[in-house]
């Protein structure tokens, strides 16, 4: 079942700013990360899907409902956590969430009960009775999430949910989002600038650049293992490099680690044995993974410097089929 889809969706602001340019893609339910580059693309897309903004041309649908004609039905099924401040400072969390629950169609007593439940799920306890003006950023973000969840939506749109949160707060919010997507069984679209978060929480990625679709793929497609093994030792890096090259491996260095080309599984044992023989302290031995940010780097990845004379740089390893050793 399609979660949402767009067809040639375009949005221009005035003559000069094109936020979305003939955007066409489809998504299945899951936890989806939405990344935008150069412009207001991701927020614009969310607003169009919610019916808060009209596109210049093209169409979009959520749960197979056309955004242009059946916006009301879509909004009954969707929860939205905006990026900016949106809470009245002189009401308490319970009052705001309960009021919005009623606006979403819940009868008064059900609204109160759901509000209490949802505020517990997001981790607001005694604070919920105090005026929102006195809340920390973390608490405000939780209230925003709570009002998006209170009417039990089937899909959540979260716009920069960790904005302004310190590391502990980010951690908790990301954990909450993961639980929402997995335990609570609600489809989630997270719009974020922070690739690290998306890698952590999402299982699918949509990347928009200059208004056009850059990628639409499961996250593991971006974080596959490469054909490079990185080895770090506490001291004696040069001796290790020599030893490995001496045993026929192609090695390079990136400053902290020695990079070994993986053609098959033999290098694993060679590294292990060389380290043991030389009596070196092995800190790390890990197959490098691609990172989401590789998508946004300009130009090819810089090839690391070759260490052994005559051995070509190990930069080409990425183009080879990634090795998935072990079980």
């Amino acid at each position, binding site marked *: 079942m399609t979660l949402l889809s767009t067809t040639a969706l375009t949005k221009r602001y005035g003559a000069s700013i094109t936020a979305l340019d003939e955007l066409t893609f489809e998504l299945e339910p899951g936890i989806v990360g939405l*990344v*935008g*580059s*150069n*412009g*207001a693309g991701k927020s614009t897309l969310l607003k169009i899907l919610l019916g808060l903004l009209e596109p210049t041309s093209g169409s979009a649908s959520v749960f197979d409902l056309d955004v242009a004609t059946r916006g009301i039905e879509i909004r009954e099924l969707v929860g939205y956590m905006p990026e900016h401040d949106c809470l009245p400072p002189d009401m308490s969390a319970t009052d705001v969430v309960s009021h919005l629950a009623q606006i979403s169609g819940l009868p008064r007593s059900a609204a109160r009960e759901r509000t209490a439940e949802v505020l517990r799920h997001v981790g607001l306890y005694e604070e919920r009775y105090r005026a929102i003006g006195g809340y*920390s*950023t*973390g608490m405000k973000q939780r209230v925003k999430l709570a009002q998006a969840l209170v009417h039990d939506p089937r899909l959540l749109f979260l716009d920069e949910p960790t904005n*302004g*949160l*310190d*590391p*502990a*707060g*980010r*951690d908790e919010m990301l954990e909450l989002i993961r639980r929402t997507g997995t335990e609570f069984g609600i489809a989630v679209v997270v719009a974020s*600038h*922070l*690739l*690290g978060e998306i890698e952590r929480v999402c299982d699918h990625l949509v990347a928009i*650049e200059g208004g056009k679709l850059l990628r639409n793929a499961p996250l593991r497609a971006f974080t596959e293992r490469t054909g490079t093994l990185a080895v770090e*030792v*506490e001291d004696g890096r040069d001796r290790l490099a020599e030893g490995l090259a001496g045993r026929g491996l192609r090695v390079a260095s990136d400053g902290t680690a020695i990079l070994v080309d993986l053609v098959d*599984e033999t290098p*694993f*044992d060679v*590294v*292990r*044995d060389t*380290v*043991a023989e030389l*009596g*070196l*302290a*092995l*800190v*790390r*031995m*890990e*197959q490098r993974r691609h990172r*989401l*940010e590789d*998508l*946004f*780097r*300009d130009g090819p990845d810089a090839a690391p410097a070759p260490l052994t004379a005559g051995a070509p740089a190990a930069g080409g390893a990425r183009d080879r089929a990634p090795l998935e*050793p*072990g*079980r």
Partner: protein
Amino acid sequence: MTTAPSEAPEMAVPAPSPLAAAPSTAPLAVDRVSRWYGNVVAVNDISFEIGAGITGLLGPNGAGKSTLLHLLAGLLQPSSGRVLVEGRPAWRQPEVYRRLGLVPEREAVYPFLTGREFVDVAARLQGVADPRAATARAIATVDLEAAADRAVGTYSKGMRQRVKIAAALVHEPPILLLDEPFNGMDPRQRLHMMDLLRTMAEAGRTILFSSHILEEVERVADGILVIHAGRLAASGDFREIRRLMTDRPHTFRVRSSDDRRLAASFMAEPAVFGTELRDDRLSVQVSEFSAFTRIVARVARDAGVRLFEVAPTDDSLESVFEYLVSRR
């Protein structure tokens, strides 16, 4: 022993100040600085020195990071202690301001000015020799040429950040202070900015930036300063800091061709005090980091087990930070 009249009389035991003998000429030096507002102590007896390179300033919300940056920029006066920029006190010294560039988090930018005008004003205020050229350079550096002649009010958050950075760079200061500089920037801009900071650091500039995005700090910073409730909790290279946390056992994750056999062999080693078999890997708890790293390859080889992956699990900045701000 009589205390000198300039010493704060309420200090019970004046510790020997590292800077008392010879004033430090480090780019940024902070000596027993505190700053309070009535009963609220925003910064509490902090001392450190920073040199060329990139230092990350970390801490929970409300820990005192912004206050510290404003103290360093000479915009706030320390309630006690000294803030020295290249050996000179920072408070209200125009010559010192020329050596600093500050990118504050909150302060608004006049929305009716264009980007170029805003940077130009900054250039002129700093007495730059050729403001137009300097402005053009600064704007090119932050990649804002396309939008430079639009009013700042029309900018996105990321663009406003970049224009603030351009204004802080226009007089080419050797010291840069940035408060959450990447806020609102998209991934490409972030990477670009991080590269920019690295380049500037390698050219000899001193850069201090505060951030909540630890994976970025980990990538770009040479060292960190961790502030918690106004106090300095740690400083330096975070991996070294981790090593110093001896009361916290290290965990390694290991993937091999035979986890169970390997686990049994590890348990025979004194450095290891716990192993845990999970679905796809082995988790090893060790009493001492180096003791384990010295034996891991040998043990695997002797047991005839192929190693696919060995990595410390809590060696990340996230982990270190979490520990630092959670202990009492």
